[in-house]
């Protein structure tokens, strides 16, 4: 909860700096301040009218394309459900969510205030923050959404996205938890705590590595070590600042550099992203991979990419958890349909279909206590394949994500202090 109060000042300073740099255009002045009211205002105030307008539109949904469970869920469940409302969903896969944000930024720089190519983005914290700084998102509509009533609005992971206030500028869609993946046939007793994991890495040289930040998963691994408590670092202040960084980062780099000789290829190089690490795990070059989306593991096992004995663990002392969202760019060409679609994707029907084993299996964001009796029972009867974590595990010992302000400096610090150090 401390994140919210202490964080505002810093964000405000950043926005102010940007506004100053943006000279007298005055476009950024009301950058999504609380109730919206930025230049990107919702098209109408009435959800029924919005639905009528959305009919016949095609939504260009930009999302990370490397998760096949997510892809087939959108194609197989979301698209047909949207079709019933007269909305066509066109899924646009991107290698990194950042690419979608860059596209919107490019449109904005070209002065394209409407008719933008990106209608809806599956967004994560640091990209949401970047877009918010540039005033990219449409704000002030979530109060209109019929399905918002199933959300626990006091949940800090729904009011803040990586420490950035959501401010009515995005719709929650998915929960995730940082976890490690191993083959129980090769490693019957995986380390159960972060400290045990580090000890295991040192005792088994060459059998572990992590993707190089700024890859999303690699960056999360570095934050995971920090959040789980690096010896000598102390607790991580929620608000980023140079002092806070200097207080914790040196110990983190020391620890990571101490790990280096025990890593795959002696830490002289790293896989460039999570799929590359998954390849190393699948080929038996390393004994573990990691993911911020444990729900994706059963699909990889089913396809035969990972062995059937694959299992997932989260350190008992906690691992990072977050909520990912759907955001509509202010200049979206089909913003009405994008808004209706993001509400639809929040509905109990689609959240349940998303969580169903055999499908994507991803974790819902809805608060069970607020659901109608029938849906409460449906969600309670969900089972989880043994190759991944049950939804109940998700919130146990979950550590809140660090503020988005930490991500950039930590990624750069890693490059300077760990990758470039020999």
């Amino acid at each position: 909860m401390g994140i919210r109060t202490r964080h505002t000042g810093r964000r405000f300073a950043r926005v102010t700096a940007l506004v100053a740099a943006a000279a007298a255009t005055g476009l950024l002045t009301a950058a999504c301040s609380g109730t919206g009211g930025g230049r990107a205002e919702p098209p109408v105030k009435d959800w029924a009218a919005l639905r009528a307008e959305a009919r016949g539109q095609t939504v260009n949904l930009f999302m990370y394309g490397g998760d096949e469970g997510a892809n087939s869920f959108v194609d197989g469940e979301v698209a047909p459900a949207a079709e019933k409302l007269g909305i066509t969903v066109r899924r646009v896969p991107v290698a990194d969510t950042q690419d979608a944000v860059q596209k919107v930024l490019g449109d904005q720089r070209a002065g394209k205030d409407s008719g933008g190519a990106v209608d809806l983005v599956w967004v994560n914290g640091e990209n949401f923050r970047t877009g918010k700084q540039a005033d990219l998102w449409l704000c002030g509509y979530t109060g209109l959404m019929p399905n918002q009533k199933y959300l626990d609005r006091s949940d800090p992971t729904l009011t803040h996205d990586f420490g950035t206030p959501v401010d009515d500028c995005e719709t929650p869609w998915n929960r995730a938890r940082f976890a490690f993946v191993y083959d129980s046939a090769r490693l019957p007793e995986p380390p159960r705590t972060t400290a045990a994991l580090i000890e295991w890495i040192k005792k088994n040289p060459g059998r572990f590595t992590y993707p190089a930040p700024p890859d999303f998963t690699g960056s999360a691994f570095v934050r995971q070590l920090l959040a789980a408590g690096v010896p000598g670092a102390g607790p991580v202040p929620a608000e980023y600042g140079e002092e806070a960084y200097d207080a914790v980062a040196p110990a983190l780099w020391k620890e990571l550099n101490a790990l280096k000789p025990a890593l795959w290829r002696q830490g002289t190089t790293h896989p460039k992203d999570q799929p590359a690490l998954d390849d190393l795990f699948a080929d038996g070059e390393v004994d573990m991979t990691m993911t911020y989306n444990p729900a994706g593991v059963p699909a990889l096992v089913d396809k035969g990419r990972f062995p059937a004995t694959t299992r997932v663990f989260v350190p008992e002392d906690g691992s990072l958890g977050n909520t990912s969202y759907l955001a509509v760019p202010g200049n979206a060409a089909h913003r009405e349909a994008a808004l209706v679609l993001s509400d639809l994707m929040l509905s109990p029907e689609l959240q349940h279909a998303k969580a169903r084993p055999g499908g994507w299996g991803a974790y819902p964001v809805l608060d069970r206590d607020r659901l109608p009796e029938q849906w409460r029972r449906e969600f309670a009867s969900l089972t989880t394949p043994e190759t991944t974590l049950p939804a109940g595990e998700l919130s146990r010992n979950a550590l809140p994500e660090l503020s988005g302000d930490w991500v950039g400096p930590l990624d750069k610090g890693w490059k300077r202090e760990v990758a470039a150090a020999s």
Partner: protein
Amino acid sequence: MTARTQPRRRGLLLAAPALAVVGFAAAALLLAARGSLADGLGRGWGLSAYADLLRDPALDGSLPLSLEIAALSTAVSAAAALAVVGAVSGSRRGRAALDAAARATLAVPHLLAAAAFGLLLSGAGLLSRLARAAGWTDGPADFPALVGGPGHTAVLLTYVWKEAPFVTVMLLAAYTPAVRDLETAARTLGAGRLSRLRHVTLPLLAPALTEACLLVFAFTFAAYEIPALLGATAPRALPVEAVGLYRSVELGDRPGALALAVVIGLVIALAATAAAVVSRRLLRARTGL
């Protein structure tokens, strides 16, 4: 009058596609230069991106690495192409086969070549598996780190495999019957293989070789996909560094990324100027003007 303007207009028309390409490249470079002097949102003016670049230790590693990759790839490709062309130049059938092979390799996209070399040379790749089957290694960890290793071996091998055929095609085109006649004349006058190469073949092929080398150098210096797929985590080639920085979650990193793009453009411009000077000298030396 019409007799003179007509060919000129035709010449301009013929040059239009090339001029359009050059125009696009120049416009892109100008846009990059503008962006490098602005803030993260492309507004305002300032030199801070360049100042940051001078302070960034990443540039210390990336610029020399990219120069090294480009220089080595160019030198090895040129040597390999010269050797092969020299070896088969005597036989017409050999030339035809070489030409066909070189053109076939040229048709393979760089991305595909990078993926193929990755599958061939990585720790769990084909060669590593063969080495293990032959009993030379116990597993992927024993196989040398060609992909992603500190020596950038896989990057260099892929570039040589792609660029040597390009230089070969350029050299074959310059290897006209006139060149062969002069070689034959030199041989009848008693010149040995080496002195023929030194005094006849090399000087006559030099302009084509210089141009091919310039193109290879400029391409390998500025290309992204091969070092991105097969290179090590640190240091990274300059274009990989620039793209990474441009895609950073920090908007403030964009001017720095564009400044790197400008640096890449400047290095290529320098190389092009040097090559132009050298090639003019060569032409003068040959024609004696």
